[in-house]
């Protein structure tokens, strides 16, 4: 499996990379009801929804580790399969492997995919620099903070140059201040290495800060509620009146706060 991003050859129209059209049911509980959307290449799509509405299930299905009850997720018109396609996932909980040092952790995907040793070492160093964790290569997870662990998870996700990157509330377990810092960080990282991202969160402010486009889900069973394109220039200003208006509008329109 070669590592490499999909190269567009000067196409003007944004290519629709991923098509999603799924429903999911556990026993008799319907969790996702007719979720259908497309993800354009290199866009930062944010999915917003209230807590417990099945966002993590959506994330799992998008990454291929869970199967939908009906429908499918396709990437370049192929049904998504982690064994074939180059996908990365940043989990909500800290997902660093406890017995790996940082460098071993971030290069895990490359090793699984069978990359050459030199490539592994080189890319590993690159992504550690990308997430600003230089100097911590030989540290174990128990020696670093929660924010740093998530950075490692992001580095690991980036290391394989994925075609599709899913993040499921990656900053949810961090304290408020670290969260703000990480939002800035993730924008910086994404600008440096553009990837197709689906970012899941329940925080509207975060969504407006990060997204090219926002999809709002309803409460359980989750349905598509509304969709927004955010045209504000990056990096965005949390205190900017336009920002605040957009945020208020979305909040009101989608009745997220009851």
């Amino acid at each position, binding site marked *: *499996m070669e590592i490499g991003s999909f190269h567009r050859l000067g196409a003007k129209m944004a290519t629709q990379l991923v098509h999603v059209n799924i429903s999911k049911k556990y026993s008799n509980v319907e969790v996702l009801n007719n979720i259908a959307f497309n993800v354009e290449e290199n866009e930062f799509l944010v999915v917003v929804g209230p807590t417990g509405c099945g966002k993590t299930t959506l994330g799992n299905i998008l990454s291929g*580790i869970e199967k939908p009850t009906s429908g499918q997720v396709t990437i370049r018109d192929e049904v998504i399969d982690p064994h074939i396609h180059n996908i990365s996932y940043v989990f909500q909980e800290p997902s660093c*492997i406890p017995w790996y040092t940082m460098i071993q952790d971030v290069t895990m995907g490359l090793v699984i995919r069978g990359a050459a040793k030199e490539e592994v070492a080189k890319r590993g160093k690159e992504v550690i620099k990308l997430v600003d964790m230089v100097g911590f290569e030989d540290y174990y997870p*128990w020696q670093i903070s929660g924010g740093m662990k998530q950075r490692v998870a992001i580095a690991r996700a980036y290391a394989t140059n994925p075609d599709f990157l899913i993040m499921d509330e990656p900053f949810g377990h961090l304290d408020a201040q670290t969260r703000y810092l990480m939002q800035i960080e993730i924008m910086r990282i994404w600008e440096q290495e553009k990837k197709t991202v689906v970012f899941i969160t329940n925080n509207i402010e975060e969504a407006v800060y990060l997204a090219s486009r926002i999809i709002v889900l309803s409460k359980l069973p989750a349905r598509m509620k509304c969709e927004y394109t955010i045209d504000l220039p990056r990096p965005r200003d949390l205190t900017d009146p336009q920002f605040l208006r957009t945020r208020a509008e979305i909040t009101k329109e989608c009745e997220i706060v009851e």
Partner: protein
Amino acid sequence: MTEKRKELFKTVGYNILSLIGVGILWTLFSHWQHSPFFPTLTAIWKAFVGLVEHGDVEQIGLGAHIWASLVRIFAGFAAACLLGIPLGLALGLKPKLYNRTRAILEPVRFIPPIAWIPMAIVLLVGFSRYVFLIWLGAFFPIFITTLMSVTRVNPIHVNVAKVFGAPRSYIIWKIVIPSVLPDIATGMRVGLGIAWMCIVAAEMIGGEMMGVGRLILKYAELIRMPEIIVGMLVIGIIGFFMNEVFIIVERWIFRWRSEVSID
């Protein structure tokens, strides 16, 4: 002096102090009791020296007894690991199979090794009897801990590998096994301790001249308390050291585990 060094000195120091305290209490009590069945520390020491220098009433030295028992313990313990770890892993990965065989496995767990002695005498011969009885003691802690540890593998770690498209063999060897290794090590340590405790029961079978259990039983027949106590102390001290060494090895191998502090 670093904090760590200071703490180490304090730990060792307090332990030694408490041992001395016990020694003082023992001496007071033995002098107050003045009975041959509660020997003084000097009597115990003399008995120890006697056993090391001249051996027991059959001229078998203390070292020979210890070695004989150690060999039996390690044989039984090795057998328990060889059977318990793979079986625990296999049944842990296939919980349905475990659930369906519980009626066979669980009752055996509760039969104490001593109860197996009559069968061991009749069905087995010589060294294999000890291996069997000690295996019985050590097997279940190792097996059950291994089994339980598989169920406790963090699904997140498995998912991380799955998202990268890892094959099943990678998940088992690179995710499951390193996850369960610390728990297996704990199970092994517990199993070794129990194996050591079974040695007296195993050596009650008779027919053997050497062994720390046999030593205690010999002197029990002669009602000689000092030597009995020496035997008991030898068993306790060796067990203690085995445990400590195990812990040190565990800590080194599993450096990646965080040290949980209560204060």
